């Protein structure tokens, strides 16, 4: 079962899309949410959380955990949202069939075990018994079929994860069979990588408004959704060990300084709103417990391969030799990152050590001189203050490339404009990151196959296509890794993306908070957390 399955998963949305949707949602919540949104101030004190779980019948000595998150969730429909802020909440409310542990290995969740047919085309999942949804109804295979078919039939954001799925059947209430058109080693990742693949009760999308309410099987129920935050209560009939705290209150605090002050004063217990420059100061701060761990995210520079001279491989290689990654990383992340010339971080079992570009201004100058359209070669570099590290990195890159014959013009855009320009191909180059991938399919496929849905840079190398497609269907893990390693080397050599670094996850909580684990995939789970005395 699980052990020889591949790990990994795609949380395949650009940081970009995540934030854009969150912004739109902010606006629409402000305009239309009247009926279901409780506008009472949930920040009115921790008493609010206690009152909420009185109705749940549980003991109320665990207290309410207050968590400050930097952005407001756009909605709570797990199949529709792409906002990280939404998943921070939903992680605690919904379950998936399988779930990645902190190391990215898939473990049983709503499915207790699974088998794969010899041809790799049929996966059979045995479901957990005695699981109930928050509305009291029982969980069975019909709910799984309903949830997956909703994503597929309505062509929701994650429908691509079912690209190789031919059918989903429920032979009996405790069994689900997934039939594939081609072997799909990344299937567990596809159906369990994150809560975007959550199981909802059959018919719930029609019966209720999932954007503002939630009916999950997770350790907490979604109680109040307000303008300042979200309140969760412990679900006492949870299939696993019940949560230790009575409830969780998420507050939206967009200013890092405000979040840290609230943490120091004890108004909040936990926050992920810690900019990298604060890490050093917080390490000696005994009022704050700091959690720093390498993440699976990566940040990169991409050049528009539909425009000369950026379509020239040698020019791009010149740029790659001209950039000093260590300096860029230090500037953008204050050391809270690891430079990398490929996408996958070194903690992953899919990591492939490959770093052909040593900072070499002479070689850079030579390559750029031979291929540039003019001297110095202008290059617009699109960044967004939605992600300040792109603005900081861009200024260092500008100074570095000025020395090798490229005149970088920094173009700082609002994120919505940024996305429009990316989609329209209206740019020379841009800086951005990808979040939350676990499987190499998520790291490389859609970004680098010729017709890839996220291949905005216009890269096309038939050899890479061949390797990536082969790898996507290879069930032998070692052979699969070898294929991805080869593809990654070509992608790096061709400078389809110019990979820069893998940032660290930085979170902070009050001293004495127990049972919390900072995870590389940034999933935030308060199930096992105990508040300080």
């Amino acid at each position, binding site marked *: 079962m699980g052990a020889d399955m591949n790990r990994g998963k795609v949380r395949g949305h650009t940081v970009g899309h995540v934030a854009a949707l969150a912004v739109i949602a902010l606006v629409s919540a402000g305009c239309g949410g009247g009926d279901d949104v409780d506008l009472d101030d949930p920040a009115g004190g921790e008493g609010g959380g206690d009152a909420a779980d009185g109705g749940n019948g549980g003991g109320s000595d665990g207290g309410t955990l207050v968590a400050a998150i930097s952005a407001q969730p756009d909605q709570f429909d797990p199949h529709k949202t792409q906002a990280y802020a939404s998943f921070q909440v939903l992680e605690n409310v919904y379950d998936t069939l399988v779930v990645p542990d902190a190391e990215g290995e898939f473990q049983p969740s709503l499915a207790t075990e699974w088998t794969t047919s010899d041809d790799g085309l049929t996966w059979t999942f045995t479901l957990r018994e005695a699981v109930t949804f928050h509305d009291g109804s029982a969980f069975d295979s019909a709910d799984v079929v309903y949830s997956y078919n909703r994503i597929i039939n309505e062509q929701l954001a994650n429908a691509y994860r079912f690209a190789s799925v031919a059918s989903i059947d429920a032979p009996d209430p405790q069994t689900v069979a997934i039939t594939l058109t081609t072997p799909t080693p990344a299937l567990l990742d596809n159906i369990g990588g994150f809560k975007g693949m959550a199981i909802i009760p059959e018919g719930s999308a029609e019966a209720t408004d999932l954007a503002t309410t939630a009916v999950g099987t997770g350790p907490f129920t979604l109680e109040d959704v307000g303008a300042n935050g979200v309140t969760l209560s412990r679900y006492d009939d949870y299939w696993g060990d019940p949560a230790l705290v009575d409830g969780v209150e998420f507050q939206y605090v967009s200013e*890092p*300084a405000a979040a840290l002050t609230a943490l120091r004063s004890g108004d909040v217990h936990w926050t992920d709103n810690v*900019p990298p*420059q*604060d890490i*050093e*100061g917080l390490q000696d701060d005994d009022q704050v417990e700091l959690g720093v761990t390498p993440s699976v995210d990566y940040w990169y520079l991409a050049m528009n391969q539909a425009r000369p001279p950026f379509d020239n491989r040698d020019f791009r290689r010149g740029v790659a030799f001209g950039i000093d990654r260590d*300096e860029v990383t*230090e*500037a953008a992340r204050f050391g809270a990152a690891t430079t990398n010339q490929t996408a996958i971080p070194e903690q992953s079992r899919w990591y492939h050590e490959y770093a052909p570009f040593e900072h070499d201004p002479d070689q850079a100058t030579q390559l750029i001189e031979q291929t540039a359209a003019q001297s110095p070669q202008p290059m617009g570099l699109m960044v967004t*203050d939605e992600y*300040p590290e792109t*603005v*900081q990195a*861009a*200024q*260092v890159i*500008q*100074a570095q490339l000025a020395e090798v014959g490229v005149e970088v013009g*920094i*173009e*700082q*855009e*609002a994120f919505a404009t940024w996305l429009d320009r990316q989609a329209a191909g209206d740019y020379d180059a841009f800086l951005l990151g990808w979040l939350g991938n676990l499987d190499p399919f998520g790291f490389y496929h859609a970004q680098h196959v010729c017709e890839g849905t996220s291949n905005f840079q216009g890269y096309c190398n038939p050899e890479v296509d061949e390797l990536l497609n082969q790898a996507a269907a290879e069930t032998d893990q070692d052979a699969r890794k070898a294929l991805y390693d080869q593809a990654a080397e070509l992608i790096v050599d061709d400078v389809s993306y110019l990979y820069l670094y893998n940032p660290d996850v930085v979170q902070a909580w009050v001293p004495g908070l127990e049972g919390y684990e900072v995870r590389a995939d940034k999933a935030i789970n308060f199930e096992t957390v105990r508040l300080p005395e």
Partner: protein
Amino acid sequence: MRAGETLRLLFRGPTAIVAAAVLAVLVLTAVLGERLAPHDATGTDVSSRLQAPSGDHWFGTDELGRDVLSRVILGAEVSLRVGAVAVGISLVAGVLIGLLAGYYGRWVDDVLMRLSDVLFAFPAMLMAIAVLAILGPGSTNAMIAIGIVYTPIFARITRASVLSVREEVYVKAARSAGAGDLRIIGRHVLPNVTAPIIVQTSISLAFAILSEAALSFVGLGTQPPDPSWGRMLAEGRGFVEQAWWMAVFPGLAIFVTVLAFNVLGDALRDVLDPRQRQAMATSGATR
């Protein structure tokens, strides 16, 4: 009123002298720019980032290791240039609109003034942000946006003065002597409506510099890596706990500049207002 006497009255008080001196220093700083800056204002050096003020870096260094003093000095040029060009735009356009509306009256007045009422009805910053959303961010576009936003103020002030001047005997005399409209507007009306326009120009410069800082603060004005006080303030905001100097010095620069323009504007108003001027002249005589 003669210019010489105006200046003499203006600089009787110490505040106006100080304000004018501060502005003179600022203009000099802006003109000398890079020759005055001790370091390269855009050259990054991550190894010397976030250094506290010292002998080498009087105002410290920022998050990319750039010298804050040099950036404040080069920022003066950006601020003053954007302020001057923006006010220049609104001055020319606004005065022209005001002269035409006030002098011709009737439908010309109605059309022009209703149009500027529409512009005036938007909050200034919202309007500037909207204009920049259309034109795209950048310091040139910021000048245009600020210029557009302040045009209606100049139009209104000019028109109000023209309305009274137009009825003066010397205008009627010129007209009966056969002078054309252009000549009357240029030779008789315009010179007699300058006082409030001068005062407004000085005050508008303060607002325009503040607007540029605000637009750059939200990322729509001057683009990185060019230094701008507003931009430096925005960048410094994330580092207040580690490096107060990143935000304090550009903030002080904005504060001093805007204060100087405002003080000078107030003093000018006192001097150019006929009643005030009378009082000042009298008190000077009896002293």
